[in-house]
């Protein structure tokens, strides 16, 4: 058996061995291919040859091989790496698993992703942290659709090193012509999608050819063997040292008033005390005072290290900010073009607010309808209105405030992001920022002399947005009307937005699908926000069934100005009243997507005001609401 480990040295001089091994580097790679390509067998082989498999695991493996293996009486390496019980029964792997092995020079972390269902989602996950991708091809089958898919995804995620492992060479008699043809086919394809270089290696995972050493069976192959190549390629973390310094601030360390350290992992470049730095997004400059570490300050730190630094001046800096080289700072923007991989069963709702996490920054972002999807099998661009599970699309992304970023191609740390559903907290997408849109850089907000405060002051009131939500027929409009009458009588300037004045004009192009409901509420929120800028007290009376959209409207408003008022009427009661006869029609199937019947209503969790209409009259409720919002009124200046 070939092995990477000099057992003799370990036995005779463990100190010398350990001294050698303090200095290993770490390479992360991903293997792409299906079970049929022998992917699990290859990984099993790598673990086996590096003695990561112990006797007890081996005996379990031998008995498993005989029971459920696919290699007759021989050891089925694939069983070593197929983890969960469910997938073992189904004979497929269903998620991303990480394996470890080491040679004399490097420790390796292998991301193993399945070749079947959910493939895009899982491979993108595994590829996101990889320095290198091994694309497996069955020598008998050549370049297949899935080969193209794997290569496209590896390239999309910015993997710089691609290995084309032509496997099962033993089954084609180690024929050079077969290998050369596959390499030529692959080269043509790779160039077409922008892969500049790749390393082809003819192997047999099952027999062990060209894995640890060059095989006698392929005298025509000049090398390198797979392991030699994995030990030699340049690591992303080393390459990142040549880039300008960036430290996304993760956490501010303040054990006492005399110490303020900024902690985070350096994403590129290096740093030493005295270096001039700029804090983004504020743009303030200062210099690095110390690099603080347990056991004593350090003279320098480099990309890939988690550090704590202190600054020479007392500048504002907190989680989400980026400390960068003063003369080469990253950009800030709030509108981007991005490539997005959708990872959730629930499709993208364009216009809805999602959490966007990039580096240590978390903001609210909305995604526009995609410009196009990319078919991962043919690379063709397809048109679509949304993104579904495993779709890859290009779309514009708007954030609610400017973020510090770099194009993904320059920095995965400052260009890669995830989207999180605000209601379910699920990670629904991964994305890569391609560039900021010109208009985000060129259009500046008008700073007018007559600003929000001036408008409000003139009206002697504080702007408010009273957001009434509840089922159809719950009494929203009735109560909102009463509230407005009272405000008017008090000399307050107000405006009521409801279905009648919005649906017939501004939003007459919208129907009642989920997407249209989201867009409807987004527009109402924007209009209401503009009216509060004019100093008005705005009342809106819409069913607004989704929590996420109500939260989006809330996030547009300054703290304390948004009041969510839940007109809480049980469905049975609203249906019994049926003021407009709509429930009867909905039950008869004459109205589709009717909230409460065929479309969900997500009740508020923490409304500022809740009105139980089965216990409180509209008049009493209106009185209480006016009192609540006026009670919190305070002069603007």
């Amino acid at each position, binding site marked *: 058996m070939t092995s990477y480990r000099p*057992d003799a040295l370990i*036995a005779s001089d*463990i*100190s010398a061995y*350990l001294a050698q*091994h*303090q200095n290993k*580097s*770490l390479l992360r790679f991903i293997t792409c291919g299906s079970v049929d390509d022998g992917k699990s067998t290859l990984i099993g082989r790598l673990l086996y040859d590096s003695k*990561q498999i*112990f006797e*007890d*695991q081996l005996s*379990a493996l031998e008995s*498993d091989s005989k029971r459920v293996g696919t290699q007759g009486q021989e050891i089925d390496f694939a069983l070593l790496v197929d*983890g*969960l*019980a469910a997938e*073992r029964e189904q004979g497929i792997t269903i*998620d991303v*698993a*990480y*394996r*470890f092995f*080491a040679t004399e020079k490097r*420790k390796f972390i292998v991301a193993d992703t399945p070749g079947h269902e959910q493939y895009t*989602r899982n491979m993108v996950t595994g590829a*996101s*942290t990889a320095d290198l991708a091994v694309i497996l091809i069955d020598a008998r089958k050549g370049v297949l659709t899935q080969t193209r898919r794997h290569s496209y995804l590896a390239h999309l995620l910015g993997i710089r090193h691609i290995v084309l492992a032509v496997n099962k060479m033993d089954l084609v008699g180690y024929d050079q012509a077969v290998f050369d043809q596959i390499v030529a086919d692959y080269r043509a394809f790779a160039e077409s999608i922008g892969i500049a270089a790749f390393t082809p290696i003819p192997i047999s995972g099952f027999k062990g050819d060209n894995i640890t050493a060059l095989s006698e069976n392929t005298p025509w192959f000049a090398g390198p063997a797979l392991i030699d190549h994995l030990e030699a390629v340049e690591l992303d*973390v*080393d390459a990142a040292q*040549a880039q300008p310094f960036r430290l996304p601030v*993760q*956490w501010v*360390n303040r*054990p006492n008033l005399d*110490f303020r*350290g900024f*902690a985070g*992992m350096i994403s590129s*470049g*290096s740093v030493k005390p005295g270096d001039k730095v700029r804090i983004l997004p504020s743009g303030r400059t200062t210099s690095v005072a110390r690099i*603080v*570490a*347990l056991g004593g300050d350090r003279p*320098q730190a*480099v990309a*890939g*290290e*988690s550090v704590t630094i202190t600054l020479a001046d007392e500048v504002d800096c907190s989680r989400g900010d980026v400390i960068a*080289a003063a003369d080469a700072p990253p950009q800030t923007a709030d509108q981007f073009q991005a490539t997005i991989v959708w990872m959730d069963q629930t499709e993208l709702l364009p216009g809805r607010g999602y959490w966007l*996490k990039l580096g*240590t920054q978390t903001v609210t972002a909305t995604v526009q309808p995609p410009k196009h999807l990319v078919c991962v099998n043919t690379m063709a661009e397809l048109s679509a209105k949304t993104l579904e599970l495993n779709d890859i699309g290009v779309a514009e992304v708007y954030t609610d405030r400017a973020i510090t970023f770099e194009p993904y191609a320059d920095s*995965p*740390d400052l260009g*890669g992001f*995830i989207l*999180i559903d605000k209601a379910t*907290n699920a*990670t629904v997408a991964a994305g890569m920022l391609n560039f900021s849109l010109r208009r985000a850089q060129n259009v500046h907000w008008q700073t007018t002399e007559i600003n929000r405060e001036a408008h409000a002051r003139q009206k002697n009131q504080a702007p408010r947005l009273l957001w009434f939500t509840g089922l159809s027929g719950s009494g929203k409009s009735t109560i909102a009307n009463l509230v407005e009458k009272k405000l008017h009588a008090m000399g307050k300037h107000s405006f009521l937005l409801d279905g009648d004045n919005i649906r017939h004009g501004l939003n007459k192009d919208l129907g009642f699908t989920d997407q249209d409901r989201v867009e409807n509420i987004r527009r109402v929120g924007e209009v209401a926000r503009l009216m509060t800028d004019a100093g008005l007290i705005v009342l809106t009376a819409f069913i607004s069934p989704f929590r996420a959209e109500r939260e989006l409207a809330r996030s547009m408003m300054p703290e304390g100005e948004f009041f969510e008022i839940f007109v809480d009427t049980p469905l049975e009661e609203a249906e019994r009243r049926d003021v407009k006869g709509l429930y009867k029609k909905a039950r008869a199937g004459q109205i589709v997507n009717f909230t409460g019947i065929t479309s969900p209503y997500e009740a508020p969790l923490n409304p500022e005001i809740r009105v139980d209409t089965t216990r409180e009259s509209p008049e009493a409720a209106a009185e209480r609401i006016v009192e609540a919002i006026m009670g919190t009124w305070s002069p603007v200046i």
Partner: protein
Amino acid sequence: MLQGQTPSPARLTHLQRLEAESIHIMREVVAEAERPVMLYSVGKDSAVMLHLAKKAFHPAPPPFPLLHVDTTWKFRAMYDLRDRAAAEAGMELLVYKNPEAEAQGINPFDHGGLHTDMWKTEGLKQALDHYGFDAAFGGARRDEEKSRAKERVFSFRTATHRWDPKNQRPELWRLYNAKKAKGESMRVFPISNWTELDIWQYILAEGIEIVPLYFAAPRPTVERDGLLLMVDDERFRLAPGEVPVERSIRFRTLGCYPLTGAVESDAADLESVIREMLLTTTSERQGRAIDHDQAASMEKKKQEGYF
């Protein structure tokens, strides 16, 4: 940096990379969770995790308590180190014992699997609920066992502490999604990507104190069902005619002493232990009675809430 000059490349070693990743994970939890805690089992993995926490938050002490879910059956040497290590780190130490298990006198001699279930699995859930922790650091490693290879670094748990291996959040780059609803929690594994050898090398490089039981010494032992058990105190029930034999032994993992198998060894210092570990032919968990039932047993236990 001077213009036109790039710094001499300082290539990071695998241990430096692993350390940086673990520290990054811990800081992310502290920045995003409301009430984090570090589960501290006193083993070598816990020792490394605690050391990393000290480094991550220096000069502040780690801003969370240590939690030991005690079974009352750990080795005596473990209790000694536990109390000292917490004090030296300047951290609060919380010790939780499942009151039902205590009342019923659950023990490894009479109750078999129920012992682990009640003291550890149930005890952990109770402790997390009792203190209201929403994120708990654990020292599990992906190389330990097959089902662990797929666990996320941030592992989401329902309000009833269940883990759903088929419905895990995708985890990309270094972006961890720590969002959760009230009552839900995260288990976070900062040393996921470390192997057993990495742990030993780091202990050696950093001079981390570990329980002396990891080093060989003459200790009183009996042999049961192929496991070599240490008679650590008078509660150990000897079979009729059974007499403890002194053997030079050490432990590769530490748990409840009547359930933890020792190996015969003369490796009395770290380097000798690492040499044995490198030349050994059995895996680390083999000394644990709990995993032996069936290949998928760990996966089942994890779905139920075992760490």
